[in-house]
Each structure stands twice: as structure tokens, then as C-alpha cells.
């Protein structure tokens, strides 16, 4: 199979490419290969030529950049001013781009504190399926003008348009952080502690469940308040825990950012709520996995046939998104398609240029 790869360096070139080619697959850094490997007849738009920070004034908490800009570059620039992307996109060291993080709709462990990518996106510019350059949202932290196209593009997997520019709200990173790893005698007790934490006044930057029965918590804030808060947290949990701090702590979370470390096979994202965990845990014995953000998000590495996982998720009433692995369709499990989805897709891509599977139909 031969695939044509184009590398536009301006929105106008993206428009030109979309108008000239029947089937288009946008690709950023390629860190989520299941989403960026072309199918028969698709022309790849390599977006890594569309880079650069367009606006960043730390006092505004707003950041605007071309979609192909690497997250690593964004994070380094923000860190110079003590700021960060609070939704904590994964695969930073693996070359992930801003546009790819939005199109895949991916957030990491730190989403626990303030929210995911949909909560921080402010504006988008994209090329739709008719080749029009479209802007939605804006560059201010509060805005209610027009349809919320920025949110629509979150998780759109390149099906609704090719992102060329994105604007984000950013926040100050806490001046001090510490991480606690707390083991419980059983999953039930770990979950009970997780629920108590979620309903409490304790504010956590991360609250992960590492099966079978370990909670990993990250506290952040002013250094002078941290010791007292750590003591309170230990009392609250009623279990001893050794805090990890300093460079060791930073390295731990940097490692977690690369979800590939979970294990071999297909890497899959599953959105859920904590009440689904007990049933899932019964079904997922032996599968490398980690629950992020207080049980709202599961990433797992699946080595068996993908149809088996598809069936498992369907039985549990959950959808899934394959990020790594060879797949026909990256969306598995529960089918979330409905009339609203079909109609909006047809409006933005009437000729199906971004529809990856139409070629096989």
C-alpha cells in the first residue's frame, strides 16, 4: 500500500490539500499510532510543519499555538513562567502535538484537580471537509459567543476537520508538590478511601488507583502549607504512607505520562465512573491497567484479540478508544453514534473526506 504524505506549513496549504484529495488523515507526532496510521486510499497530512506559539502572555493564563506544535515545547515555555496545561496531556516525551492531544481528547493524571482537555480549550481554527478555514471560540478565558466548536473538536479524531490552531487556558503550577503511595488490604478498602477522598475537602492534583489496591495521590500548593496538609491526609486515610518528594516525585509523574509503559499490546482509553470499577476489576485480571482521576478514566494495555475487549466493554456498557495497535476502527465497546452525531458530521464533512472507513464500504 502506498500512501501519499503531505506536509503543509500554513493553513492555506491545509485547505489546498483538503480540496485536492479525496481521503485525508491528519497526523501530528504519531504518538497514538492507532489513530494516525493511514488506511487504503488516505492521504496523510503531516501537521508537524504547522508549528509555533502565536500568543502567550502569562498574565492572561491564555496560550495560542499552531496545532502541530509539540507538547514538549509548549510545556517548556509554560514552565518558564511557572505555568502548565492543567489537563496534563500524555505522551509528551513521545512527540505528541497540541492538535493531536485535542483531536484524540486525551488527558493525564493531573486532570483530577481542574479538569480535562475539554475544560481548558478556548478556541480552535480548523479546515473543514469543504476546505473552508473555520474559527470557533476565542482567546479569552470566558466566552459564550457562537456554537462551541472548540469543545466539538475535542476527541473528534480528525473526522470533523483538520486542526490548524488551538487556544488554551493555562494555570500556575503549584509551587510545591508531594506524592503519597498508599496500599490497602483490598480493592474494596481502596475504593472506599477513594470515595471518601472524592467527597472530602482535600484537594488533590492526582488520585490514581493502581490495581489491585493501591492509591497514588499527589498534593500541590504552597510549600509552607504542605507538611500540615500531608499530616492531615495521612490521618484521614488512617494508614501510614511515605511521601515521595523532589526530583524523584517529578520523575515518577514524568514516567506516568508515557502510557506505553503500562505494557505491550493495544493501548486503550476507557472513560468511566468509579462505580464501574469492581465489575471491571473482575474482568480485567492480569491486564496491565491504571485508573486515573478518581476513577473517571482507565488506560489499559490489551494483549489478546481486540474483539474480546470490544465484547467485554460492550457487556459492561462502556466505550473505548484504541490509541496503539492495528485497528480497523479505533472506537470500540459501546457505540455512541446517534442522529446528532451523524448530522453534525455531514454538515462539516459532507463528502466524507475525513471518514476513514468509507473506502472499505
Amino acid at each position, binding site marked *: 500500500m502506498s500512501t501519499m504524505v503531505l506536509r503543509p506549513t500554513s493553513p492555506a496549504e491545509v485547505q489546498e490539500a483538503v480540496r485536492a484529495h479525496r481521503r485525508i488523515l491528519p497526523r501530528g507526532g504519531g504518538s497514538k499510532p492507532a489513530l494516525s496510521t493511514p488506511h487504503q486510499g488516505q492521504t496523510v497530512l503531516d501537521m508537524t510543519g504547522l508549528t509555533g506559539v502565536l500568543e502567550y502572555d502569562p*498574565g*492572561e493564563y*491564555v496560550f495560542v499555538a499552531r496545532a502541530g506544535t509539540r507538547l514538549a515545547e509548549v510545556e517548556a515555555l509554560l514552565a518558564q513562567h511557572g505555568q502548565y496545561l492543567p489537563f496534563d496531556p500524555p505522551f509528551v516525551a513521545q512527540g505528541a502535538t497540541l492538535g493531536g492531544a485535542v483531536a484524540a481528547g486525551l488527558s493525564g493524571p493531573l*486532570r483530577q484537580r481542574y*479538569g*480535562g482537555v475539554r475544560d481548558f480549550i478556548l478556541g480552535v481554527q480548523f479546515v473543514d471537509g469543504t476546505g*473552508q*478555514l*473555520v*474559527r*470557533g471560540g476565542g482567546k*479569552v*478565558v*470566558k*466566552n*459564550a*459567543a*457562537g*456554537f*462551541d*466548536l472548540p*469543545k*466539538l*473538536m*475535542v*476527541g*473528534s*479524531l480528525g*473526522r470533523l476537520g483538520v486542526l490548524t490552531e488551538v487556544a488554551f487556558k493555562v494555570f500556575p503550577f503549584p*509551587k510545591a508538590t508531594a506524592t503519597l503511595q498508599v496500599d490497602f488490604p483490598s480493592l474494596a478498602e481502596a475504593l472506599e478511601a477513594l*470515595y471518601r477522598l*472524592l*467527597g*472530602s*475537602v*482535600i*484537594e488533590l492534583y492526582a488520585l490514581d488507583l493502581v490495581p489491585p489496591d493501591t492509591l497514588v495521590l499527589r498534593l500541590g*500548593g*504552597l510549600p509552607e*502549607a504542605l507538611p500540615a496538609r500531608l499530616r*492531615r491526609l495521612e490521618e484521614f486515610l488512617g494508614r501510614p504512607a511515605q511521601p515521595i518528594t523532589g526530583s524523584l516525585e517529578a520523575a515518577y509523574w514524568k514516567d506516568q505520562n508515557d502510557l506505553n509503559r503500562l505494557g505491550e499490546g493495544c493501548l486503550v*482509553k476507557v*472513560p*468511566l*465512573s468509579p*462505580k464501574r470499577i469492581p465489575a471491571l476489576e473482575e474482568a480485567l485480571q492480569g491486564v496491565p491497567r491504571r485508573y486515573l*482521576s478518581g476513577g*473517571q*478514566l482507565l488506560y489499559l494495555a490489551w494483549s489478546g484479540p481486540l474483539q474480546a475487549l470490544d465484547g467485554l466493554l460492550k457487556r459492561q456498557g462502556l*466505550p473505548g*478508544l484504541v490509541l496503539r495497535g492495528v485497528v480497523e476502527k479505533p*472506537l470500540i465497546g459501546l457505540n*455512541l453514534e446517534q*442522529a*446528532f*452525531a451523524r*448530522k*453534525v458530521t455531514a*454538515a*462539516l464533512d459532507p463528502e466524507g473526506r475525513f471518514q476513514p472507513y468509507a473506502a472499505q464500504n
Partner: protein
Amino acid sequence: MTPALRELASLFPPTRLLTQPGELAPYASDALTAFRAQPLAVVLPESHAEVVAAVRWCAKHRVPYVARGSGTSLSGGSLPVEGGIVIGLNRMNRLLRLEPKERIAVVEPGFINLQVSLAAAPYGLYYAPDPSSQPVSTIGGNLAFNSGGAHCLKYGMTSNHVLAAKVVLPDGETVELGQESLEGVGPDWLGLFVGSEGLLGIATEITLRLLPKPEAFHTLLAAYDSLEKAGEAVAAVVASGLLPGAMEIMDALAIEAAEAAVQAGYPREARALLIVELEGETPQVEAEARYLDEVIRASGAYEVRIARSAEERMKIWKGRKAAFSAVGRLSPDYIVQDGVVPRSKLGQALAEIERLSERYGLRVANVFHAGDGNLHPLILYNGRVPGELERAEALAGEILRLCVALGGSITGEHGVGMEKRAYMPEMFSSEDLAAMRRIRLALDPLELANRGKMFPGEAPAAHSHGAHPLQRAGVISGG
């Protein structure tokens, strides 16, 4: 009665189908009272199935409709369509499910915003979005207009707190958007639906995310002898790395109004008041309060008060929250504007608004969500003085254009509605608007759902008092 109306009468009992002029009058307008329109009828559904029936009737007979709750829209977003149907959702006001452990509440669209927090309070939880209308406005309306409030910088707008919705599309089909998780896969369809101002359908069941109530608040009121100093104080707070839950500024006229209305005990002679509220875990808030104190001391405030009790905190907020309605005591009429500018442009925007105020000979009171750059200029006028309303509207329009020119938005939280549709081309290109219109037409080819709102050029929905200022200036055409 026409055959179509008879058919509608077979779907709703007489007590929930209003057709008499006297019954329709309260529905002829929303909180933007400068616009009025006479609907053909009002229906008051009590279930999802009845909403479907009403929408299907509208689709069959090609009758435009608007869904509304308490009618608190300040942008004319729930103004009826002349000769159309109003679908009043106040009777669909049940709390369907509250799961404190999972931190979610499922409500009908007519459920009142503040009631969500009251229902969640026994579990130490609350619903974060707090528009100033929260004691009366409904969740359905909040969802349609992506309502804001004082806490948006840190917590986001309504859209960030809606997880799922059952929606009746304009053709009567029902879809489920979103899910109970904070995360999702595939395009964020719900994200598009929230804030679509009733143009894409009607939500009949809404799943909301609840948050734990913060353990501690630190609420500070600082008085300044100039607006500029208050604005610079906000910039200094941000630069210090603090992330307050809210930062609000009121100017002298707004202070006067608030004092006249609720006697909040504000320093009356101040040229500007700044309210900053920190919230979170007690040890953290205590430490942050020390930093905040240093920043505010250095900012040139001539008086600083700290709320020492919940009562003192409520009193500080009472004045701020009452400021809009309080302005009614200073002037027979006023227009509330809702523009946004980048925070660094606040000073420039305020200076320009002051110049415009003098040029137009109309007083402007300023209340704003300083952390978000969300301005609320209140333009005072007397509707009985010929030409004054038109002058006020022209001034309001200039303020909106100023916001866009400074890199901001024509609306931070009230929505576009009827009021601002003529200004959409100031902010978006014709290609941007065309893409939004294509989405609208894909879901509602007959443009029945809240016809005439948000987009310039859609069929006129109402008789207003005259041509829009931009229309007179030749900038736009159409109603």
C-alpha cells in the same frame, strides 16, 4: 380555532395550553424587555414525551418555537417567535436522581440552579456555576446559554459542569449526548450542544457534576481611589501565582447602586472596590491569604477588610450580586452589557468606556468579573426621553466592538440571543458563521428551534422598537 391548534389542544389539557392574550402576555418578553413578540400559544409540558409531542407538532405544521424556563435571559435568548409556540419548561422541575458518592445530580430542565446546591448540601457537595440569577434561573436555560458567574476563571462555565443530556432534536427524535463520566471518547457532541442557545434542540434530562464544598473561604474587600489601581491589583494577584475562586471589581456608580439597594456596608466614597476570594483547604487558604495580603497592601488600597465570618462574607457578596438590579434605583432603565477583554486590556477598556459615556451623555456603571476580563457595563438611560434608548443601544454596540478590537468577545456569559446577533460578524468571519449555520441547518432545516437568534440574517423573530444601530449605519442588513 384552526385545525392545527385543535390538534395541539388534543395533546395538552386546557390548563397547560395557553392561547388567551392575557395568558400569553407574561411570555411575550424575557429579561431583555426592550424586545417583545406575541406567541400563538404557550404549552407547559410535564414530561419528556410531551416535549417530543410539542416539537413534533411544530415540525409537522412548520411552526417556529422557543423553549424557555424562568425567562431571565438578558440577551433576549428566550424571546418568543412572533406567531410561534413557547414551550415553557418550568413544570419539568424535578430532581430525578442524586448520587452523592458519584457526585452527580440528574435534573429536569426547569430545575432551579440554586436548588441543585441546596439538594447537594447535606452531602457536603455543591453545583459550581453561579450566575447572579441563580435563585430563579433554570438549569435548562443555564445549559442553553452556557451561563457563567463569578467563579469561571477557576471552575469554568456551565459547559464544564454538564456531563450528559437527553435531547429532543428539532425533528422530534430523542438522542442521548455525553455520559456520566467526566471523560469521553469520540467528538464532544454534548460540548457543542451546551451553549447552542436552543437552536439545536431541547434538553429534557440533564446530568450535572457536583463538587465538594471548599473547606475554607478567605474573602477580601479592598477599596481604591482609582479604577486603574484596582485593575493593577488584579494583575498583581495573577502574577503572584495565586488562583482565587473569584475576583470582582465594582466602580463608584455600581457601589452607589449596591449601597442604595442592600446596604452592604461598602466604603461609599471609593472609586473602585475589589473583591478577592480564596477557597480551598484551610492550611492552604491560610498560607495563600498571607501572600494575598502582601499583594493587596502593595497595590495601593486605602482600606482593606477581611470577612471574619460567614455572615460578613455573605454581606460582601450580597452587594455585588445585587448590583445589577440595584442600578434600577439610579435610573428608570438600563442595558446590561456583557463583553470580554483580555485581562491586561481591562484598564484600556475602562478608560475607553468612560470616554464613550461622556460622548454619549449617558452614565455607565461598571461591574465586572475581573479574573475573567468579563465586563458588565450598565448603561443608564430613560426610555421616556425620545431617542435615549437608541443612544444607549448605540453606546452598547460601541462597547462590544471595542471588546472585539481588544481581542475579546461580544459575550462572556449572557449569550448572543436576540440582542447581539448583529455583532456576530464583528467576531467571526463569514466562513466561521457559515460553518455554524451548516450545523444549525443539518439539525433543523426549517429553522424552527428558537428561530431568529444568534445568527444575523435569520428570519426576524420579533418586532423591536426600531432598526438596529448597525443596520442604520449600513453595517448590517435585515432585522
